[in-house]
């Protein structure tokens, strides 16, 4: 069993020495508190019949705040802490006292709603008073609800379990049908609010603004009950979500089963280059061991592509040990057809699948049975996600093990150095921006459809000047007309058709064109289509490779053919800044006297996939580089950027005593150098200065280190004659550029931790001489969502702290001149730039 396996692993030095940190949670016993006095006797009996005889202190405290204080209440707690009881009790108690009250329960997923529905039903069935009520008294209402049951639910439901999507698409726009429900609305439950982050969360906050307007229209003042996993400043986030003052009740993590957690850092293979063993290799070993011990495991990967690659590796490795490799090891991610997903879920519940490789699509809700081990490949981007993913194993009171396997990503290595960051729960803030103009505009249009918007009315905390500009825009677009006191909807179509989950509403259909027939394979969201399924891309699906033949972005269709397992591709994306406007900025002077500027504002940029690299899957070496041209996509969003002053650049240049060791430049260097001088007529090709008694320098346009052999590096096309002064300038620029590039790399990898977002949510642009920023060296971090959702502003606010963190992180890294874990891999882009990045940071960060 698990104990035996853990013991075996812990006695194996090749494993133990890689465990950076361990945490062990014994099952904790909790002291019970008696049911509150106001509890309806029947409800007390029903709870006891369900095996609940007492409450935990935090439950009791929360119930007091909800029932007696009538406060909007937030419950923050870990897994298996009985937080659902905290809203079940007030809802049922109120229903027993006053038969027509209603409650709205919102869950981020259908599966969670289903789980909760079952639990509530168990209690309701034990309440004799409610037996005469219609069967749809409590109902789940979502996309899966059969249409012939919907009108019965609309008429009778008093406890409605649904999700924000359904509220947005079906309930709010038809609120008059629900007038009975809204007129009696007493409670609104928002479960697992930490999921409502980023774009999704910004949409949800606006849906709640609309919901509150509708409730007010029916003259009800519902009380909010929110639950959250562990996040930083949860009440601040919750208050941002519901825009009401609230009371927070916190429960420190408790478990009902024994849980162990490891942070596992695969060993370094090459100290100078900082190359670390790929975590896939360790994950494979752990998986095969656990299957041999008849244990079930789940492996979380950060991307859809990683899921597929690991699945292929695992199936290859396990062929020997498993008769039915394909069925024993499954994968799960977005983009699979629903039938395939249901099949995987079923095989997990039945125990037929021994291991599943998944993205965070399996993080929440869906019942996947009892698992023993969770492996997480690479920090998933947030503490909350990490604990959610760890929580997928050991759910039925069985012991469990969670292993976080670190990659050479800077963020992962940061955690290797600071394991307490994970254990001691000082997690990130959840960031949303309900006032993103594009999101707000879409919801204003919906709100207008639902109820006229009066001139003086408020829409949550949206700034009035923004609101009136947007309403004015709706009038201009013909979607609204002005009345004497209010704005009214004037379009003919319901404006609710957009999705609140993804950035782009549309997805691209993947069609498999095999020799005999065509069949649907899956989908890719429109926003990712350019870089995931550009023509020539290798796309993995359920462990099988496909190659994209055509991508038709107008018709939203991509045609794929069976591909080769040896080949993986990576797109080459070109970004161009069209304009940059700062709305806030601050000048700083560092202790060493150099000034730099940190700014925040909006940016307009064009991005285009211009080609792609083809790698060998086994060796990860580049095989070829192909050009393609997809139409550029424009993005206007928020950004924050660091601008270095001219004086700072000069000082870096001066400090840059670039020592070229001629001996390292290969045997033909002297010959080629003289040929270049001769070709350039012994004149500096930058300022035109002729040689006077001393030979000019010869410079490699593309740095020497980027070439595999000296002959290619020293070819005449790559050489240019420069006078010593110009050479210093140019080399200085190279140094600045490589310093900036190195810093940019670290920035993009560490920032998500502070902005509490996914890596894909941020982009970086570095330019030593940008014409869009007065030719001053700039590092710019921009958001990927149009209009931004507050990530850039968050980074702007903590910029100096961030710079300090980056400096510490790079300093601590043991590598020689940059590695994947700090300033970027030397092997891939040829220049580590670690020294330059540090020199730069030392000038500005204290």
């Amino acid at each position, binding site marked *: 069993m698990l104990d035996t396996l853990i013991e075996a692993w812990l006695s194996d030095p090749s494993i133990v020495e890689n465990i950076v940190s361990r945490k062990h949670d014994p099952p904790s016993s909790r002291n019970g508190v008696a049911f509150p006095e106001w509890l309806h006797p029947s409800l007390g009996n029903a709870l006891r019949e369900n095996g609940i005889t007492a409450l935990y202190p935090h439950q009791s405290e929360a119930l007091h705040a909800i029932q007696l204080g009538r406060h909007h209440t937030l419950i923050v707690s870990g897994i298996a802490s009985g937080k659902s009881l905290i809203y079940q009790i007030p809802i049922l108690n109120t229903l027993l006292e006053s038969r027509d009250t209603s409650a709205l329960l919102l869950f981020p997923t259908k599966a969670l709603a289903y789980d909760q529905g079952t639990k509530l039903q168990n209690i309701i069935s034990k309440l004799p008073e409610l037996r005469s009520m219609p069967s749809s008294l409590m109902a789940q209402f979502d996309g899966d609800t059969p249409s012939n049951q919907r009108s019965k639910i609309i008429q009778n439901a008093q406890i409605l379990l649904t999700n924000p999507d359904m509220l947005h698409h079906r309930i709010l726009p038809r609120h008059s049908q629900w007038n009975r429900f809204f007129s009696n609305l007493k409670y609104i439950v928002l479960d697992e609010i930490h999921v409502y982050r980023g774009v999704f969360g910004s949409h949800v906050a606006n849906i709640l603004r609309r919901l509150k307007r509708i409730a007010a229209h029916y003259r009800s003042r519902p009380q909010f009950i929110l639950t959250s996993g562990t996040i930083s400043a949860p009440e601040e986030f919750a208050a941002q979500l519901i825009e009401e003052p609230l009371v927070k009740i916190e429960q420190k993590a408790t478990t009902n089963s024994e849980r162990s957690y490891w942070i596992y850092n695969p060993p370094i293979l090459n100290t100078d280059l900082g190359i670390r063993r790929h975590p896939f290799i360790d994950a494979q070993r752990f998986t095969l061991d656990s299957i041999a011990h008849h244990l079930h495991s789940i492996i979380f990967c950060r991307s859809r592509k990683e899921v597929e690659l690991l699945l292929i590796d695992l199936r290859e490795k396990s062929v020997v040990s498993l008769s039915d490799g394909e069925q024993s090891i499954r994968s799960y991610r977005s983009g699979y057809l629903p039938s395939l997903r249901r099949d995987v879920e079923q095989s997990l519940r039945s125990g037929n699948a021994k291991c599943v490789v998944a993205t965070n699509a399996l993080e929440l809700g869906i019942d996947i049975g009892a698992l023993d081990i969770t492996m997480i490949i690479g920090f998933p981007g947030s503490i909350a996600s990490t604990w959610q993913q760890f929580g997928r194993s050991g759910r039925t009171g069985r012991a469990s093990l969670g292993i976080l396997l670190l990659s050479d990503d800077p963020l992962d290595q940061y955690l290797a150095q600071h394991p307490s960051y994970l254990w001691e729960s000082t997690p990130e803030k959840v960031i949303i921006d309900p006032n993103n103009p594009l999101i707000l505009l879409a919801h204003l249009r919906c709100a207008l459809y*639902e109820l006229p918007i009066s001139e003086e009315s408020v829409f949550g905390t949206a700034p009035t000047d923004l609101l009136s500009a*947007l309403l004015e*825009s709706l009038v201009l677009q013909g979607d609204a007309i*002005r009345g004497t*006191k209010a704005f009214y909807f004037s379009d003919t179509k319901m404006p609710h058709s957009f999705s609140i989950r993804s950035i782009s509403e549309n997805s691209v259909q993947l069609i498999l064109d095999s020799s005999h027939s065509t069949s649907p394979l899956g989908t890719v969201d429109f926003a990712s289509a350019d870089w995931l399924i550009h023509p020539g891309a290798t796309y993995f699906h359920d462990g099988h490779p496909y190659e994209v033949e055509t991508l038709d972005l107008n018709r939203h269709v991509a045609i794929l053919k069976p591909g080769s397992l040896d080949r993986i591709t990576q797109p080459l994306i070109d970004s161009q800044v069209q304009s940059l406007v700062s709305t806030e900025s601050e000048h700083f002077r560092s202790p060493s006297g150099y000034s730099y500027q940190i700014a925040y504002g909006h940016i307009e940029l064009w991005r285009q996939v211009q080609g792609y690299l083809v790698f060998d899957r086994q060796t990860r070496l580049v095989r070829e580089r192909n050009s393609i041209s997809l139409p550029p996509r424009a993005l206007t969003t928020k950004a924050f950027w660091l601008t270095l002053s001219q004086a700072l650049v000069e000082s870096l240049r001066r400090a840059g005593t670039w020592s070229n060791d001629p001996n390292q430049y290969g045997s033909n260097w002297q010959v080629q150098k003289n040929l270049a001088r001769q070709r350039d007529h012994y004149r500096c090709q930058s300022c035109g200065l002729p040689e006077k008694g001393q030979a000019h320098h010869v410079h490699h346009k593309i740095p020497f280190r980027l070439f595999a052999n000296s002959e290619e590096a020293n070819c005449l096309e790559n050489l240019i004659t420069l006078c010593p002064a110009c050479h210093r300038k140019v080399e200085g620029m190279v140094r600045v550029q490589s310093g900036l590039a190195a810093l940019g790399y670290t920035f993009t990898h560490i920032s998500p931790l502070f902005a509490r977002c996914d890596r894909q949510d941020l982009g970086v642009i570095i330019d030593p001489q940008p014409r869009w920023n007065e030719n001053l060296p700039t590092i710019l971090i921009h958001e990927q969502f149009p*209009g931004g959702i507050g990530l850039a502003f968050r980074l702007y606010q903590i910029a100096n702290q961030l710079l300090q963190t980056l400096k510490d992180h790079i300093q601590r890294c043991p590598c020689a001149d940059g590695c994947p874990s700090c300033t970027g891999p030397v092997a891939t882009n040829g220049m580590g730039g670690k020294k330059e990045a540090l020199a730069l940071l030392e000038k500005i960060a204290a």
Partner: protein
Amino acid sequence: MDEIHRYLKSLGIPLAQPAPQSNLPRISQPATLPNSRMINHPFGSVCVIVENIPLTDPARSFEIPVEIIQWLGLKKPNPRFSVEDFLFIDVETSGEYGGAGVLCFLVGVGRISNRAVQLSQYLLLHPEDELAQLLELEKILLSAKGFMTYNGKSFDLPLLQARFQFHHIPSPLHEGLHIDLLQLTRKIWKNHSPNRALRTMEATVLGIQRAVDDIPGWMIPSIYRDYLLTQDTSFLTPILYHNKMDVLSLAYLYLHIADLFSHLIEPTPENAPTYFRLANFYQSIGETKRAILAYEACQPYLLDEDQSLHTLETLGHLYKKEKSYRNAVDQWQKAAQLGSLSAHLELAKYYERIEKDPTTAETWIRAALNVLDHAKLNHFERSKWQKELQYRLERLGRNQGSVLK
């Protein structure tokens, strides 16, 4: 403010350059709409257009036919209703689907009285006047005992009801009876024309011709939007015409149906199929005697062989139910000549049970078996009939003993 505008524009959000241009003055009196007047309320004003339209052919009876009341499922004692107690209602909406943002911006209400249709159209010149519109409507709706619509069961009435609910007004529609003429039409004119759209009924049954430039109903929401955005009332004229014609058609359609029920329309080869459906309708509400009359009236004119055969069979069945065997046998014999297996079977049963004449009964069974040999039936039906007829034959044999051997 300029900064916000610049930023919103770069996000692709359309904004007017200097000041919003679309601040049009509100219309207070629609001069271009004839017969219109404004009714003012503290919370808005509604435009009401009133017209008295003489009936081309005055109503011959004001009483709502009992068949319709029966069909509505009202139990005896049957209350009597005059058509004057009913309102003809047709609603035009501002959007495609039912939702809180869809207004019933025009509600046409007609009442038949004194050889004319009194039409009142309640028009919203601005969405902010909706409460005034509904309060005026409430008055007239509460004055009626019932409503007639065309597809109002799933369209006009729920939409109107939702508007009352939206303004927290108890729906005045709950009080009255509702006759959805589409449902009656479906019963009476089934298979009559390609569809049961009101326009089709006008053209094929009522002989009403609309102006050539009458707009199709699906265009109405976007035309109303054009009016809202421009405040140009000339956009409304074709909508008002369309709505008026809808209400008028409703009234004429009702009168036509009422006349059918009163047999004021003579059966002819052209309307024989209608009588046939009418007979079906009587049968479905349990009015056997009327059903027989209607079937008898249309039978000679039915050109469709299937309908004709069905009529004879059904008449046989209905006469049998009335214990009028002679008439039943007449019908069955006619049907049998046309090759009806069920008529053969009914005749055999009749001779066996009523006439106690097994020999004739057997003759009919054997004739039926002969018909079956040549009938165009699928395997399933054939074997069903085969079984049934064989069973009858054997039963006769058993009862007759050696006679049949």
